[in-house]
């Protein structure tokens, strides 16, 4: 984690936020963002992620704690003096100005001479491949084009930190995927620091260097995407990121890094004890659907297995999705790749399923 140890560019120090003096929307936030990082704040609505972004931008004040930018506390600096670029959810392009005027606006208020302004605007528009659209009004552009202009406007005054508040929410799926790539490419080229807010986990996983998963005003886990998906630290993260099967039970025994869990619906399984420490503790066991194995030959010898009944088989093209009843859970999903030798399970069939103990994580109940 060389990046995390680098000098902090943005830092939240024990930040708390309350709107009404009764409920904390953000509870004791500590977050360090190094220069050049693409950090995503991911979480369900009401989890406090947008509030954090707004505090950083200066539109909300922190009730407690300090927000530092490049080593200086910015708590008392008004938004227009922070020099932070921002892309809004609905782009917030000024409808009464042309695209070029929109881009020139931040330069104009910085009193940059006209000739220089024009050249800078032209460069910024070309960067987002919108060179010939300078004379248009925002209303004459498509959603994707507006998105590009909004991005260019946030970057045109050479902000080192750019905040993005669900910028791709209004686009259709294909365009969204394309823009994800585009934003990532531009951010890398310019070497800017990006704080990106989204509730779309795919977006978070594909774009970010690190993802902070928010829930209930706290960061539940802060990790690179692969770590987040493969090693969720608690049941919320396991549930929120990707698809997840949950089995509830009680820890029978912990030894040699393996926890033996007695499931409520019957059956004993070996798990990786991530969030449990003592015998008798209740736990939620999490297994990713693609890590479930029903081909006995591929299981480790001596591994615990469970019996399952096939309830439904769904053909999805590239994958098969099979719904099972496992230990009383009727929504246990197994995903298998559509390979030539893949078995298609018939509903009603009784099968044996298993997994590697390391893929089966015993988390907090």
């Amino acid at each position: 984690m060389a990046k995390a140890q680098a000098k902090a560019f943005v830092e939240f120090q024990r930040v708390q936020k309350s709107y009404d003096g009764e409920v904390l929307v953000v509870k004791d936030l500590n977050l360090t963002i190094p220069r050049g990082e693409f950090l995503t704040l991911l979480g369900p609505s009401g989890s406090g992620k947008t509030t954090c972004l707004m505090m950083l931008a200066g539109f909300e004040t922190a009730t407690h704690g300090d927000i530092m930018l490049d080593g200086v506390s910015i708590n008392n600096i008004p938004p227009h003096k922070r020099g932070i670029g921002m892309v809004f959810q609905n782009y917030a392009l000024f409808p009464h100005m042309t695209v070029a005027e929109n881009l020139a606006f931040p330069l104009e208020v910085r009193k940059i001479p006209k000739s220089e302004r024009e050249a800078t605007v032209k460069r910024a528009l070309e960067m987002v491949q919108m060179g010939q659209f300078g004379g248009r009004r925002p209303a004459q552009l498509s959603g994707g084009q507006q998105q590009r202009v909004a991005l260019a406007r946030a970057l045109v005054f050479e902000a080192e930190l750019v905040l993005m508040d669900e910028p791709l929410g209004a686009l259709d799926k294909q365009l969204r995927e394309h823009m994800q790539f585009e934003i990532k490419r531009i951010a890398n080229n310019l070497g800017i620091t990006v704080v990106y807010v989204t509730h779309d986990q795919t977006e978070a996983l594909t774009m970010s260097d690190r993802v902070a998963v928010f829930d209930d005003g706290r960061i539940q886990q802060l990790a690179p995407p692969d770590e987040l998906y493969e090693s969720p630290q608690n049941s919320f993260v396991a549930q929120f990121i990707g698809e997840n099967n949950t089995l509830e039970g009680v820890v029978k025994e912990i030894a040699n890094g393996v926890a033996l869990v007695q499931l409520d619906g019957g059956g004993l399984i070996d798990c990786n004890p991530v969030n449990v420490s003592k015998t008798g503790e209740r736990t939620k066991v999490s297994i990713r659907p693609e890590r479930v194995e029903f081909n006995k030959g591929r299981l480790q010898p001596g591994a615990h297995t469970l019996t399952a009944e096939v309830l439904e088989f769904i053909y999805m093209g590239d994958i098969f999705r099979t719904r099972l009843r496992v230990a009383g859970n009727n929504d246990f999903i197994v995903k298998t790749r559509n390979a030539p030798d893949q078995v298609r399970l018939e509903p009603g069939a009784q099968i044996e399923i298993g997994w590697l103990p390391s893929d089966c994580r015993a988390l907090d109940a």
Partner: protein
Amino acid sequence: MSYTDDNGPMMTVDGKPLKRSLAIALRRQKIRALLLISPLLIFVLITFLFPIASMLFRSVENDIVSEILPKTVVALSDWDAQSGELPGEIVYSAFAGDIQRAAKAKDHTRVGLRLNYEKSGMASLFKKTARKAKKWDLEADTPFKNKLIETHKGWADIAVWQTLKTHSSRYTSGYFLNSIDMRKTVSGPEFQPEDRQILVTLFKRTLIISLVITISCILLGYPVAWLLANLPMRQANLLMILVLLPFWTSLLVRTSAWKVMLQQQGVINDLLVALGMIEETGRLALINNQLGTVIAMTHILLPFMILPMYSVMQSIPPTYLRAAKSLGATNWTAFWRVYFPQSVPGIGAGSILVFILSIGYYITPEIVGGNKGVFISNRIAYHIFQSMNWGLAAALGTILLVAVLTLYWAYDKIVGIDNVKLGG
């Protein structure tokens, strides 16, 4: 199977033209829609369009003279009004016949009154002449030239005959000329004498005071509309009630209340004297002048300005201001460069509404305006209820209507009526 001829119109599967088929299919809908709006349509036709059309017509209509004095009008057509000589016996005898018949039918006062608008003294001239004319014997009492001049020396005045001839045509531009302080004479239009010039001044005053009222409404209403659009729901609702409260109060009550507030012995003056800000002898004249009209009408028309502004402002998302600030604009720059331009359609809509309402306002200027603060509409009312010169009232009304339409047209050209929003 093909639904079209190669070069003919589109056909249905049965070979009927598609257009006709569509028209039949939509006819029922159209008839039903028409039936639904017909009560309102009829109501508007009877109470609005018809009176306006009749008013427009009345402003040029002038058949009293030619109807009541038909023979005189014919006889006068051969007389050269600018010759400086009185008309001949033919005219006088034709007039004697006409006036006798008019006197018996009691029509002489109408024509007298009509001509009195153009030249004072005509009403009494007709009244006196008619009284005597009833006893004349049309066969024996010739020549009527002497007889009439004997009856009233006005008939020897060439101007009387000129007036009669000038206003004998069935249609006249006379009322419109009067509206702009001119009059019709035998030698063409000319200005009214100084002491009768009042209407142009009134038109100018109406426009200027309406403009002042509109500007006051913008200045007072803009912050209120902004607050309405930006306060939290509960406070905004309370404020909205305060804005609408005067709306629900009778116009007469509000205007009278201003009378109580503004008069020299009124609340405001008393307060200022009590506070020692003005002397007892130096009480301010706040009412019965233009200031009174401006104050009272600004208050009365303010909701018409606030409501359109509010609905436009409400549709401006707060993110625009945030975006501007994040781009480095100060609060003022963000407001002036980003928020204000987007709120202009609301100002436009409110201004049209307030301006058009105020140039036609009548009650308030009548009560608080005194002599100096009355509008053209008060003059129209005067001509309708008191002088009974409906033709002139109609002409004034027509000019006002045309002025409003012209303003509307100009506004459409400059700002574009599409940019006027009354709702989000």
